């Protein structure tokens, strides 16, 4: 008999070595996440995917599924707290959706909608962050960075480069570019690199491609992130 866990009372089979997130996605259950991507090593830092496993909070993207686990995900408490964690990400940076090219394609925005986030709740930090437009084809707006490290991982794990890194500590943590000048133009990043396309928010954008898809016809304009996520990540987890 195959091994199973239960998520919100539903019995889910899993394979040895799968995380709770992988087992859930394979079974068609969406758990909100931002720093997780099925093609890269899980990071477990955004904490949106927190679930209660046998009574304890765990990040489902890093926590291994084990036979008989009782997992709670869509409880009122977890949904409310995931909304607050999303609000934390919003107030920490400068996320001005109406003026951002990524609106409608942005996972942070889509998670906000999914969790019924209606305000910022917390006081805004209004941090002073930089924009690097030095590269000929790619621009980075640090105001929108949520420190998910997906660009760091994609550059290392798929592009075979090491363009991005995270520097600093605590609330001063920020994305840096691995070049002597510290500028994006002096790295070996190319517009075709996976790292240039992996950003869940509008922090990394490809130049001269803005608004090619009009607002209203974008990914999350017609589908919620749970549906999109399951459709696009379902197969990848099974690979």
């Amino acid at each position, binding site marked *: 008999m195959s091994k199973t866990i239960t998520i919100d009372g539903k019995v889910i089979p899993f394979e040895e070595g799968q995380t709770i997130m992988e087992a859930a996605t394979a079974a068609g259950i969406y758990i909100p996440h931002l720093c997780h991507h099925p093609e890269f090593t899980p990071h477990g830092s955004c*904490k949106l995917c927190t679930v209660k496993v046998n009574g304890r*909070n765990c990040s489902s993207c890093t926590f291994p599924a084990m036979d008989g686990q009782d997992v709670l995900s869509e409880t009122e408490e977890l949904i409310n707290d995931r909304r*607050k964690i999303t609000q*934390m990400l919003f107030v920490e940076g400068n996320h001005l959706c109406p003026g951002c090219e990524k609106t409608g394609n942005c996972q942070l925005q889509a998670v906000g909608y999914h969790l019924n986030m209606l305000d910022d709740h*917390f006081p805004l930090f209004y941090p002073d962050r930089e924009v690097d437009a030095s590269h000929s084809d790619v621009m980075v707006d640090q105001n929108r960075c949520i420190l998910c490290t997906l660009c760091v991982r994609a550059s290392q794990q798929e592009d075979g480069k090491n363009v991005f890194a995270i520097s600093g500590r*605590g*609330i001063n943590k920020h994305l840096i570019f691995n070049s002597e000048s510290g500028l994006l133009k002096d790295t070996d990043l190319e517009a075709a690199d996976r790292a240039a396309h992996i950003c869940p928010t509008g922090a990394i954008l490809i130049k001269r491609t803005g608004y090619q898809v009009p607002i209203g016809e974008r990914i999350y304009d017609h589908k919620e992130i749970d549906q999109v996520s399951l459709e696009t990540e379902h197969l990848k987890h099974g690979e």
Partner: protein
Amino acid sequence: MLGVQVGGPSGTFISNQELDRKLAFEDLATGGSFIIFNSSRNILDVAHNFTHFFAHESCGFCTPCRVGTSLLKKQLDKIVEGHGSAGDIVALEELCQLVKNYSHCGLGQTAANPVLTTLERYLGLYETQLKKISFEPGFDLDGALETARRMANRYDAGAHLAQTESEHE
């Protein structure tokens, strides 16, 4: 004596009414450190100092601790500096639970302890810091106009703003 901080900043603050408690895993767990505060100290200053310490020490890996410890610092500052109003202690406690329950490591999971353990024992002290109105801006409105007054070289009553309705009276 005011009380004892058992186990460093992330430990438990006990009041002078609890001195019969035991240092043990079952009661007050500690690696050995404790700090004794005499009655010249202010509880809010203690919580304030420790909370600033944790915001500075957070490594920033996970959202609840990176953002949460800074929010805790801001929220406690707001109350300590006299800009807190009715809902602010509830908001403070809610934030404490969020940081405690969702942080990745022990630093974040215990960063709210100075506030939580003192709130539990000295709620009244926190409450006396609050203004008796339903909402209070998180900053000094009139103070924020100081630069504008200097630039306009105006210091008359019209160049000052009252923070709340009650101050007009």
